């Protein structure tokens, strides 16, 4: 029953928020946003304590991988909701009817994806995220965000269409086998007697479809434009939660193919996509001049790492699942801080935001720490997952992949350091005074930063257990 509530509550909230038109309902709309985010977080927390039974006739259920992605989404959404209070107070005082409705719709869609055991339901949920996020990207209603939303819509819809084709291929592959169609438990149980040719075709098309939503290179072209033009908290949510849900789709079909024993077919494709994403990210990060586009390419890099870990198998799977969590938190943290920067100076170009340590000291410090976190420097969580993936690469006998990964990480660090440190430390072009940073805008990033730092040093036991079971589900093993 709780599973249904987790998905329907935000949906109802969205409708309610959308219905309250007019300026005077601004405060009400924002409070519904924060209220629902809080309730959603509590509900998801209860799932950790005592798991809920399958619902909606087995179509929705809770498994380790889904729960991790759901918790990540819920935490990110709560942090973004807090941030949105400060953002809407400054950016659009009358509450932004479409904005809050879109956000809540997005939460409903992502929750549906995280909890669905039926692949077609997962597809519907992911498709729903596309059209809930579209108006959010178009929030600023100017020429550049128009171009961004058009590109996003077109490429995502084509991607999702390919995914739909993949799902139909999967259904065809299962037509011969027993078990209810397209239900994950049944697919996994009878994986061996699925039709091999159709299953391979299904895997490829689903990987292409969800890969487009994830932003794997070369399907990533919409990412820099969309994250660059959308409001930062929306970019943060997309980079953190949406990409993780898309990855969940890829993970589901990988689960099925691994169960069907097609690892030799699946792994080269995943490794190929992973290395290509790392390469593209490295090339496009050097000489980048806009901080949000920089973070978009960093997201492409981390998606590459996720798929690389999946393709390596062994402890790489554990590294990948941990990396989903770390990357989501770190990406949202950085985008929210970038949001603060853009709110203060109105532009996300590096040249316009020099000397942050003096104009926005807390955000500046968070940005610099974020640089170290996102590039996998030890005290932070991303180091643990990237180091595990590296150990998997060496363990699986791919020294050249490990070498390439390290080279790309080095180049990416140089590119990001050049931009972010110049922003944080340069001397401010117009001698700006110290702007007052409202507590609403800082609570989110600070909380996320502590979470990433904690994951670097201490992983709580229930999470460790969930990560291990998720890794084994993906055909890997815990370190």
């Amino acid at each position, binding site marked *: 029953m709780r599973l249904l509530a987790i998905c329907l509550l935000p949906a109802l909230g969205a409708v309610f928020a959308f219905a309250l038109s007019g300026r005077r309902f601004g405060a009400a709309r924002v409070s519904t946003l924060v209220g629902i985010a809080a309730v959603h977080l509590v509900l998801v927390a209860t799932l950790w304590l005592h798991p809920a039974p399958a619902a909606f006739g087995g179509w929705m259920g809770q498994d380790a991988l889904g729960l991790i992605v759901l918790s990540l989404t819920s935490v990110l959404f709560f942090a973004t909701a807090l941030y949105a209070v400060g953002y809407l107070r400054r950016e659009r005082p009358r509450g932004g009817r479409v904005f809050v409705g879109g956000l809540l719709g997005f939460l409903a869609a992502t929750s549906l994806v995280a909890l669905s055991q039926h692949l077609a339901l997962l597809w519907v949920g992911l498709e729903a995220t596309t059209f809930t996020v579209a108006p959010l990207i178009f929030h600023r209603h100017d020429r*550049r965000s128009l171009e961004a939303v058009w*590109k996003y819509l077109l490429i995502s819809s084509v991607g999702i269409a390919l995914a*739909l084709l993949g799902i*139909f291929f999967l259904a*065809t592959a299962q037509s011969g086998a027993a078990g209810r169609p397209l239900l994950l438990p049944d697919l996994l149980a009878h994986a061996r007697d699925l039709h091999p040719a159709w299953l391979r*075709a299904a895997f490829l098309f689903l990987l292409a479809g969800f890969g487009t939503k994830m932003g794997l290179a070369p399907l990533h072209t919409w990412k*820099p*434009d969309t994250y660059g033009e959308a409001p930062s908290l929306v970019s943060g949510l997309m980079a953190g939660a949406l990409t993780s849900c898309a990855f969940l789709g890829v993970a589901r079909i990988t689960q099925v193919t691994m169960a069907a024993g097609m690892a030799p077919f699946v792994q080269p494709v995943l490794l190929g996509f992973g290395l290509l994403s790392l390469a593209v990210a490295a090339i496009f990060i050097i000489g980048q001049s806009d901080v949000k586009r920089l973070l978009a390419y960093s997201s492409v890099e981390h998606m590459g790492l996720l798929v690389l870990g999946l393709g390596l198998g062994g402890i790489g799977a554990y590294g990948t699942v941990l990396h989903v969590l770390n990357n989501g938190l770190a990406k949202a943290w950085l985008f929210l801080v970038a949001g603060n920067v853009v709110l203060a100076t109105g532009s996300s170009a590096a040249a316009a935001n020099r000397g942050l340590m003096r104009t926005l000291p807390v955000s500046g410090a968070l940005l610099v720490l974020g640089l170290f976190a996102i590039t996998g420097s030890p005290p932070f969580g991303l180091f643990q997952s990237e180091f595990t993936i590296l150990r998997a690469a060496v363990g699986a006998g791919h020294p050249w992949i490990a070498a390439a990964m390290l080279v790309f990480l080095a180049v990416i660090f140089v590119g990001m350091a050049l931009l972010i440190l110049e922003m944080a430390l340069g001397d401010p072009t117009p001698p700006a005074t110290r702007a007052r940073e409202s507590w609403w805008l800082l609570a989110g990033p600070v909380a996320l930063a502590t979470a990433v730092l904690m994951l670097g040093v201490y992983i709580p036991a229930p999470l460790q257990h969930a990560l291990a079971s998720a890794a084994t589900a993906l055909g890997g093993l815990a370190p």
Partner: protein
Amino acid sequence: MHTAPQVALLFIVLMNFAVLGTSRLSTCIRAVAVQGLLLGVLALLLAPRFSLHTGVLALGTIVVKAVTLPWFLAWAIREAAVRREVEPLVGFNASLLLGVLAVALAFAIAARLPLPGMQQELLVPVSLATVITGFIVLTARRKALTQVVGYLVLENGIYLFGLTQTESMPFLLELGVLLDLFVVVFIMGIVVFHINREFDSLDSARLEELTD
């Protein structure tokens, strides 16, 4: 009995070529509408026995794909006051040639992917051909509206393939797919309207401000 579906499938391929060949937007939209209609009819023809489920589904397809979306796109054309696709990225006869190649490729792929227990062997190649045609229209045209039409053709191809799995796809999900398609195209329409108002032209080549 299965000659009727074959005729319908052939007509769908013809409509593909119509979309590729014509430079007039209204013809494109009419072709897509006819394809939607044929899809609805095919849903009825292919279903083993007529039931409420297949009936409502077919009706839903016709309503969405044959009536509402084309009407909405036609409204968009009147609003944007644009009649013809001026010089597209890839010429019309070149597109037709690509269309033929698409059909050939589709048949080659279908040959390698035998559909277990499916008596209508024409269905898979036609659906793949429609999908590839959709791709061609998407990339080869400049007008934003034509790209939406291309996306619709792509969806029709995938939906056509979906008909092979009528019994495995539960009713609710078919509806979900239809609903998603409707909303996405609806939003694309709104965006096209904004593009027209902002750039006072639908030429997507204008949309190039965002780059590294």
